[in-house]
């Protein structure tokens, strides 16, 4: 048996495809990306010239990156907080009802498996100026706001709208994670608390919440990385209007800098933005895990 499991040829055959793919499609490009971030790409000669930290200097001065950074941070904070509250609330409610739990769970989870692009377009039409919610409000004589093109405010209205759509789409994921954790809590803990005279709300506060803590770290880092990578909804809801409306996030700005017809092909600058994004993702994960680091309780 032992000899079989030490079979070098078999190990090599099993691991090689994954390792080769990883190296060629992931690690070499990451290293290249570091190099590109320090280069200027010329569209005409299709060549890269090394220019040191020029791209990062440009980034530091660029006004759009500040907007993109601000918006990305907004999505990060909003999604972490809102998903935490709504996720735990829904999980708590659904584990306490007797009838229809599966139905509600499945309905709320559904948008998670649907395409963000399609759902974003759907919501864009619902928030459309002429058809959709505004025409509904007009029936009552209310003039609805420009949901997707209002530019006033520190965090503009469209950002709030998209943040809520994102919450709508992905809250099912957090809810399911918390439900999975709750179902692992031993029933005897609750029974003991009821005997001691605790109400359902109290047992939720003093038993469920503390025992959920390890899962909060997991769910929140998923949310954080997801909201930093946020691209699909914004791209589908705002199209290429992000520039005029100052509604870029890091991912859309990267796409626009590198590939859009108007933005030109600044591969070097786009790589620099990509690096910023990676650093932010790593930072967010580390910080969240620091905050919610707990010993796993015996349940």
């Amino acid at each position, binding site marked *: *048996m032992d000899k*079989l*499991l030490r*079979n070098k040829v078999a190990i090599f055959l*099993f*691991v090689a*495809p*994954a*390792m080769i*793919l*990883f190296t060629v*499609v*992931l690690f070499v490009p*990451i290293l*290249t*990306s570091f190099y*590109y971030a320090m280069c200027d790409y010329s569209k005409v000669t299709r060549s890269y010239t090394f220019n040191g930290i020029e791209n990062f200097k440009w980034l530091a001065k660029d006004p759009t990156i500040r907007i993109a950074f601000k918006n990305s941070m907004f999505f990060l904070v909003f999604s972490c907080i809102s998903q935490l509250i709504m996720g735990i609330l829904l999980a708590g*409610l659904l584990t*306490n*009802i007797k009838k229809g739990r599966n139905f*509600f769970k*499945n*309905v*709320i*989870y*559904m948008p998670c*498996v*649907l*395409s963000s*692009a*399609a*759902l974003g*377009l*759907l919501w864009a*039409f619902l928030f459309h100026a*002429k*058809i959709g919610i505004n*025409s*509904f409000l007009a029936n009552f004589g209310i003039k609805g706001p420009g949901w997707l093109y209002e530019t006033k405010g520190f965090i503009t209205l469209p950002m709030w709208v998209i943040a809520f759509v994102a919450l*709508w789409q992905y809250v099912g*994921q957090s809810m*399911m*994670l918390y439900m*999975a954790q709750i179902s692992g809590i031993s029933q005897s803990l609750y029974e003991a608390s009821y005997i001691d005279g605790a109400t359902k709300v109290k047992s939720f506060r003093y038993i469920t919440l503390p025992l959920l803590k390890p899962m909060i770290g997991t769910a929140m880092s998923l949310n954080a990385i997801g909201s*930093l*990578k946020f*691209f*699909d909804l914004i*791209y*589908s809801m705002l*199209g290429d209007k992000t520039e005029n409306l100052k509604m870029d996030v890091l991912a859309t700005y990267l*796409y626009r800098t*590198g590939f859009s017809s108007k933005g030109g092909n600044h*591969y070097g600058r*786009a*790589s620099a933005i*990509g690096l910023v*994004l990676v650093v932010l*993702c790593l930072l967010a*994960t580390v910080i969240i895990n620091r905050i919610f680091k707990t010993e796993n309780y015996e349940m």
Partner: protein
Amino acid sequence: MEKQKKKVKPSTIVIYAFLIFLVIIYIAPIIWIAMSSVKTRAQIYKAPFALPTEFHWENYQVAWSAGKLGIAMLNSLFVCVITLILTMLIGSMAAFAIGRMRWKLSGAAMIYILIGMMIPVHCVLIPLFVRFANLGLNNSLWGLILPYLTFSLPTSVYIMTGFFRSIPNELLESACIDGCSIYRIFFSIALPLSRTGLFVTGLMTFVANWNELLLALVFITDSNKKTLPVALTKFVSPYESAYHKMFPAILIAIIPTIIVYCMFSNQIVDGLTTGAVKG
């Protein structure tokens, strides 16, 4: 005997009212788009929320052909199925070697693969695009399959490793005594025993890649090779007014997923949650 009526607590009513309100928020947008998709443009414009009085099914035909949704769906299916099969095969092979076989570098290999989970796809977008353009892989579906496969591998290796480690030693040993080769042990014993893991990883891979937009948007410009999300975002724009063409397109894009989801919702939800918890 008098039937004792069970008293319904007011808190229960509030909870159910809240949940039903949520269900409406979740389902109403989809019903709205379905209703609007059979109206004419003028009707949508005049009364967006009214029930359709006549059904213009030809809208769907127009959207299907004008948006090139048929070919886009086939492209998406091709990319996703190939990625799915390769991810399950390559991922579980690596997971078996890492989780069950004995070699010095297995821990290092695991870490190497797990780093991949932290890397967002945006970071390798430009280098990959440049490299693939040189290799002639841009505008090719294989150029999409390669990165999709690579980005699906970390989670599947991680999950499958867990499943392979939970197989009892005796099972593998008895197979060994019966004279199985290591390949036979893997394909006929370890893999079938980890069906749940394969299902979970397969599901995660398929859902993620079926909906992926950014890579597909950058790599594919040829209109005959676009995947479904790309074709949809190119065809539908909230800033145009041919509503009667665009609404059916949105619906066509999400209906297959909705149907599959409704049929297997419990397994899908549980499977994806297992995946997320473990990953």
